[in-house]
């Protein structure tokens, strides 16, 4: 239950629901990645590149659960901040300040 669903993604509903085609990679033509805030946060934590994650929500929206399963499967079962993928080019790595 630790993800983010949506009424649109559940069984049925009122309204004209425009159904997305099968969920695919979440990167869109304009570069926006459809992911809920907590999923974006988790992706950064795990060093997961969001454009690689298959979103299970409408329009391929990425939920927390999707990032977790990608972290587990997509990266050979390894998760955790230690297994960072290469950081996005524009963003330098944060310095870690030991307390």
């Amino acid at each position: 239950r630790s993800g983010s669903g949506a009424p649109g993604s559940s069984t049925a509903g009122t309204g004209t629901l425009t159904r997305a085609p099968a969920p695919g990679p979440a990167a869109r033509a304009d570069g926006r990645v459809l992911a809920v805030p907590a999923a974006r946060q988790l992706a950064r934590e795990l060093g997961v590149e969001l454009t690689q994650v298959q979103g299970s929500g409408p329009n391929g929206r990425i939920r927390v659960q999707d990032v977790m399963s990608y972290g587990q499967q997509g990266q050979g079962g390894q998760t955790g901040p230690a297994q960072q993928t290469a950081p996005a080019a524009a963003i330098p790595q944060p310095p870690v300040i030991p307390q």
Partner: protein
Amino acid sequence: MTKSFDFDVLVIGAGPGGYHAAIRAAQLGLKVACAEREAVGGVCLNVGCIPTKALLHAGEQIAAARHAADFGLTFGQQSLDIAKLNGWKDGIVKKLTGGVGALFKANKVTHLIGQASFVDDHTVKVGDQTYSAASIIIATGSEPAKLPGLEVDQSSIVDSTGALVMPDPVPARMLCVGGGVIGFEFAHVYNNMGAKVKIIEFLPNVIPGADADAVKEFAKIMTKQGIEIAVQTKANRAEKKADGIHVELENVKTGEKTVEVFDRVLVAVGRRPRTDGLNAQAAGVTVTERGFIPADTRQRSNVPHIYVVGDVASNPMLAHKAMKEGLVAAEVIAGKPAEQDAVAIPGVVYTSPELAWVGLTEAEAKEKGYEIKTGVFPLSASGRAMTLQATDGFVKMVVEKDTDLLLGVHIVGPHASDLLGEAGLALEMAATASDIALTMHAHPTLGESVLEAAEAVHKQAIHIMNR
């Protein structure tokens, strides 16, 4: 569906449940009739949601004018023209019910005037005429429950409908029997208009169903505003005398009885489903002992082509639930995969401040076996609330401990009902407290208090110290 029916859908009752069903069915191309024996709009528009909110607004403006002295704005003699007040309120009702009538016309919904009763499961008599329909939607609503010993005469002893007509002069002493939403809304109106108001509630807590902390804060504020609240108290009988209505009150814990005198008594002890004259048994439709006609999540009664929506179907008796169910019934009839699958049904007391909530209370969450954490942000720390002269109240969030999943939001504060929009969407989207905390909220807004409550769940609120 064969051509032998007069209508694809016949809706009984034009309250929010019924008129939503009728309009949506028509939007989906069905041939629709809607029978109504009183006024379109039902309880909600005529004698419920809308006129109460009009009176509440008027009362709040009186209070606001008083508080304006804090920033240097004062007024000479204030006067309230009660006839004009009642007329203004009635005007809003008329505009809205007229609007529903116009929407019926524009959507080609046939409006049948009169009492509807079943002849058989496809036939309904409305007035003298008989109509057949492939599908029928029952949306007959509810009516005030009665209280033995306090006979409603709609002048000195009133139910919610009678209380909507403000008497001139405003009664000096008012008793509200029933500390639910309706009791408090009227108490607030009459209190702001100058009455000395007492609310009594049989149960140990007012506003049953709301979060205990929120109710405590709410009751504290209402008391501060001058409303007297007595819980575990019931009214046994009322007697009209020259100096007022003598009401025997009983403390249900101690059994102690006292007599108090009032000028007006409101009986607001709940509502019961309304099926009188419907002749549901002729259609084979099940009516429970308490008068409800149960429906499944697609709003179907035990007879598959007869649907039930709104107050007559189930609690909570709220207009937005009726509306949603009306839409679902219409869509299911039109062959759409609709379902009443709401995660939560919001509740609001439209006083000032408002009490508004959606989702699980702390107690409900624990009962359901959730391990939870909570976050509270007091409005006394909100800059926006200060500028609005309204710092009483708080936002409380109930969240599942391990997953951060949002379970419920409970707000006492100004515009709390507006803030429910975010809370309700968050619940439906299965959002986490982090999703809310990471979302930028405009400054300075009351919505920042929702953000801060989410941060407080993580002990990271900025404008308070996190224990």
